């Protein structure tokens, strides 16, 4: 659909420059302490903007906006500033299993309850959050073959604060055909969940939340108001130009997460031999997780098309292993436009403490140290199918549209389904649509 008249088209360059000038002023003013105030005549800021909508059927919906500003100085020094804002709303699985009768759960805040119909997967529909994230990254050549980079990160949402730093050093060899890099990052996160931090394996209090002793009883299921975690990552990279058409990258990463890794909103059903829920208890995860991954990526330029193919193998000390294959094929259509089909396949095994529910007899005789029914650390297969269309507009600016379909299929890792659970959907699939518009100028 064409809605722009010739007259309007004639006005666009002026309007566009004004937007860019305004953003340039705003960005330099905002980061005056970091960036030198340069004259607008240099006009060497590059802006990338993106808007994304993510929507799951009957569950979570999210909108995310990114504004990225990049300035290249003389001597190839690069300042990159990124603002990300996202909002999330909808329903998320609370971890309990479906039952052949209506189930009642208490909201994470302790204020009120919600009912789940017979046969439905229990979802807590009170999820809503807004997040603002700022990133600043400075990259510069240190000598002819050495490039250094350092960055800061801050992210704030209603109940979560994350602060991080990172640094990276890359060394080129053999006429820049080979590059080694080493990087590290450190994050400090603080979680202040609504309703506080639940006591591990405490029973969810269910009853009359307007009763006089409700809040006192609810407080007995809590151990604090906030908790934190740190994440330390080390990333080793190796990049090699193979020939005129091909470049490859190999990364090894080591990530150590320490602190509160439990999800305070997740519970487990305690079921009897008939599969009927007798209780709901708050989950508990280990306070440390060490993840490692090997990542291999190759870019290959055919006569006109470009294939981006990658594989990641991840393993951790929770016994989760995952395989991710991602491929994009960029097909030019002439005059700067292209289409890019995208296929991603993902498969993971379950954490050793994952359980879709706990048997009452086992729970009472020898309570596990850790347990979680969060399907995201259970056995799962997922795939993404997408298509991106990109075009050149307004003096070479890039505009692109991306539409993707994401399907998650949690699978049974060999748990029995006693009694009524045999007739319930214990591993419901999740379908989501991802729509994105990107504009660079």
């Amino acid at each position, binding site marked *: 659909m064409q809605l722009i008249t010739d007259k309007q088209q004639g006005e666009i360059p002026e309007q566009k420059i004004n937007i860019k000038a305004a953003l340039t002023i705003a960005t330099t003013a905002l980061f005056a302490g970091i960036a030198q105030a340069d004259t607008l005549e240099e006009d060497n800021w590059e802006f990338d903007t993106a808007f994304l909508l993510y929507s799951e059927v009957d569950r979570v919906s999210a909108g995310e906006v990114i504004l990225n500003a990049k300035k290249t100085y003389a001597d190839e020094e690069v300042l990159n500033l*990124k603002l990300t804002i996202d909002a999330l709303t909808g329903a998320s699985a609370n971890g309990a299993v479906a039952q052949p009768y209506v189930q009642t759960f208490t909201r994470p805040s302790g204020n009120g309850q919600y009912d789940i119909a017979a046969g439905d997967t229990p979802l807590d529909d009170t999820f809503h959050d807004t997040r603002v994230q700022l990133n600043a990254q400075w990259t510069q050549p240190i000598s002819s073959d050495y490039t250094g980079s350092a960055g800061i990160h801050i992210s704030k949402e209603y109940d979560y604060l994350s602060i991080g730093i990172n640094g990276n050093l890359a060394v080129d060899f053999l006429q820049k055909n080979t590059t080694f890099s080493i990087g590290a990052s450190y994050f400090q996160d603080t979680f202040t969940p609504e309703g506080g931090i639940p006591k591990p394996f405490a029973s969810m209090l269910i009853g009359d939340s307007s009763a006089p002793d409700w809040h006192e009883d609810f407080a007995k299921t809590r151990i604090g108001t906030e908790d934190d975690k740190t994440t330390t990552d080390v990333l080793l990279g190796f*990049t090699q130009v193979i020939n005129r058409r091909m470049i490859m990258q190999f990364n090894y990463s080591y990530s150590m997460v320490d602190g509160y890794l439990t999800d305070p909103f997740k519970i487990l059903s305690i079921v009897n031999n008939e599969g009927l829920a007798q209780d709901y208890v708050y989950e508990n995860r280990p306070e440390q997780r060490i993840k490692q991954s090997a990542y291999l*990526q190759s870019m290959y*330029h055919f006569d006109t098309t470009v294939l981006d193919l990658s594989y990641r193998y991840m393993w951790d000390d929770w016994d989760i292993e995952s395989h991710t294959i991602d491929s994009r094929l960029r097909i030019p259509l002439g005059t700067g436009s292209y289409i890019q089909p995208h296929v991603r396949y993902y498969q993971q095994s379950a954490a050793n403490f994952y359980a879709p529910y706990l048997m009452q007899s086992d729970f009472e005789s020898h309570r596990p140290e850790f347990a979680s029914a969060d399907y995201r650390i259970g056995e799962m297969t997922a795939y993404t199918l997408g298509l991106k269309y990109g075009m050149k507009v307004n003096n070479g600016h890039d505009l692109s549209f991306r539409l993707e379909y994401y399907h998650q299929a949690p699978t049974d890792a060999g748990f029995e389904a006693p009694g009524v659970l045999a007739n319930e959907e214990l591993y419901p699939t999740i379908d989501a649509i991802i729509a994105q518009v*990107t504009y660079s100028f």
Partner: protein
Amino acid sequence: MKKQILLIIVMSIVCSGCTNLGVQPWERDLLAKDEMSLSSSPLDSALDDHIYFSKEASSGGKGFGGGGCGCN
């Protein structure tokens, strides 16, 4: 242990050919294109990382995978 051996084998294969690989500076016409960059769409990558970090047990690999939001 199997993983470490696999890692060493992959690294050995990758490294053993290094000296015979690569291009001369004047042969970088295709490699210099934006679409041949290993991070050709950084915004797409950032958005995808956020989605998959929230929905799956894995993160990172291409870049740093840790921290950043309470979405997981």
